């Protein structure tokens, strides 16, 4: 009898928890990402990237708070003939410079206002890994340098409800990939930093 009582309690608790979780909503979406190099990264690439995208999912734990994850890609490419200074000399010629950045991030967001508001600002923090691939083509030579970095990306944005469960999203994010090795030129610090402007569409779905 006691065992049956315990079993019933456990089943009831599990069902209650499942129901509570089922009421949590999931926001998933895709964004078009613009990337603007900053700091040391802008010495190599000072051109904006308009070729990037991200897919993201956020699970609301309450009306004001969500956790989730995202995968993004930003790509920069520049044709230049800028002379590259070396420690005791220089190298010149037509160059094509490339950077590919692949952030794999988990995130948490805090939402301002009420869930029923049509426009809802939010603040967020992303943490995770960046895989960054840098390549320089000069003359008949090609040099490549790729590393994994630990990174952080604080962000702020807003969502506008366009129709029931569908939102337009706009986010400004500062991506910072910490030092994890040497640069292509042999320097000891290979940090990367760039601003991201992400515009896209998201859908809210509930699990039943």
């Amino acid at each position: 009898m006691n065992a049956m009582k315990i079993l019933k309690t456990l089943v009831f608790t599990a069902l209650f928890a499942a129901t509570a979780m089922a009421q949590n909503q999931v926001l998933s979406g895709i964004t078009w990402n613009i990337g603007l190099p900053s700091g040391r990264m802008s010495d190599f690439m000072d051109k904006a990237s308009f070729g990037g995208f991200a897919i993201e999912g956020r699970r609301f734990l309450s009306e004001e708070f969500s956790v989730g994850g995202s995968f993004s890609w930003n790509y920069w490419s520049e044709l230049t003939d800028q002379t590259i200074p070396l420690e005791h000399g220089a190298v010149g010629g037509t160059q094509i410079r490339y950077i590919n950045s692949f952030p794999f991030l988990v995130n948490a967001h805090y939402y301002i206002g009420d869930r029923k508001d049509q426009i809802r600002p939010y603040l967020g923090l992303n943490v995770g890994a960046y895989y960054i691939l840098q390549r320089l083509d000069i003359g008949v030579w090609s040099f490549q340098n790729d590393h994994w970095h630990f990174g952080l990306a604080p962000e702020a944005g807003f969502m506008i409800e366009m129709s029931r469960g569908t939102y337009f999203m706009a986010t400004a994010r500062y991506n910072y990939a910490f030092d994890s090795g040497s640069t292509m030129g042999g320097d000891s610090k290979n940090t990367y930093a760039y601003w991201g402007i992400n515009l896209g569409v998201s859908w809210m779905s509930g699990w039943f």
Partner: protein
Amino acid sequence: MKVSIRKSRLQLLWVPFLVALGGIVLTSCYEDYGLTTQDYDSYLTSYTPGTNFQKFRYFVMPDTIVHIYDTTQTDPLKSARKFDKQILSLCASNLEARGYTRLASLADVVDSSVTLVVMNAQFSSEFTGYYYNYWYPYWGWYYPYYPGYYPPASGGTYSYTTGTNVTYMADMGQSRQDKRLDGVWVGIISGLTGSSSTAGTRISTGINKIFEQSPYLYAGQ
């Protein structure tokens, strides 16, 4: 309720589509900008740290370029020898524009400690390799069937030859003292061979470029 579940599952179908889209985009992410032969020229300069270029006032330079090649074969750069005088003339004019005075021969050297020895040499290099396209055909194994990976459909070999001109400067006084060549500066121009119509222009650009990249290279008063 059933409508909501169906809608959620439909939304999830976007995920593999987007991942596949990302894969296709990634495979074409390296543009080549339609470069011409001249765009593959490169210019490298290097100087010995601590060199005081302002102490030098004169330079001597042979009126020939040393051609380095396997003498059992024909020199791959034989057709480019018609540009030798152009190269030597440009080297001399660039140094003179920077305040150095050319001496006609070694016999005219009065003070070797303020004299540079300038030499030019040329050689060629041949590169061969192969390539194949990993990503083609990308859709072949994923849709509509899944019988296994299809072998790559494109590939080939490549071969190209580069020509390199090296301009080398040594401190005559220090070299005589050490009984070896003490180099203080080197300028290297390298590019693809085969485009004779633009060779003269490319050579002029290259020689001028290696001096432009060396703003420290000028004579003292």
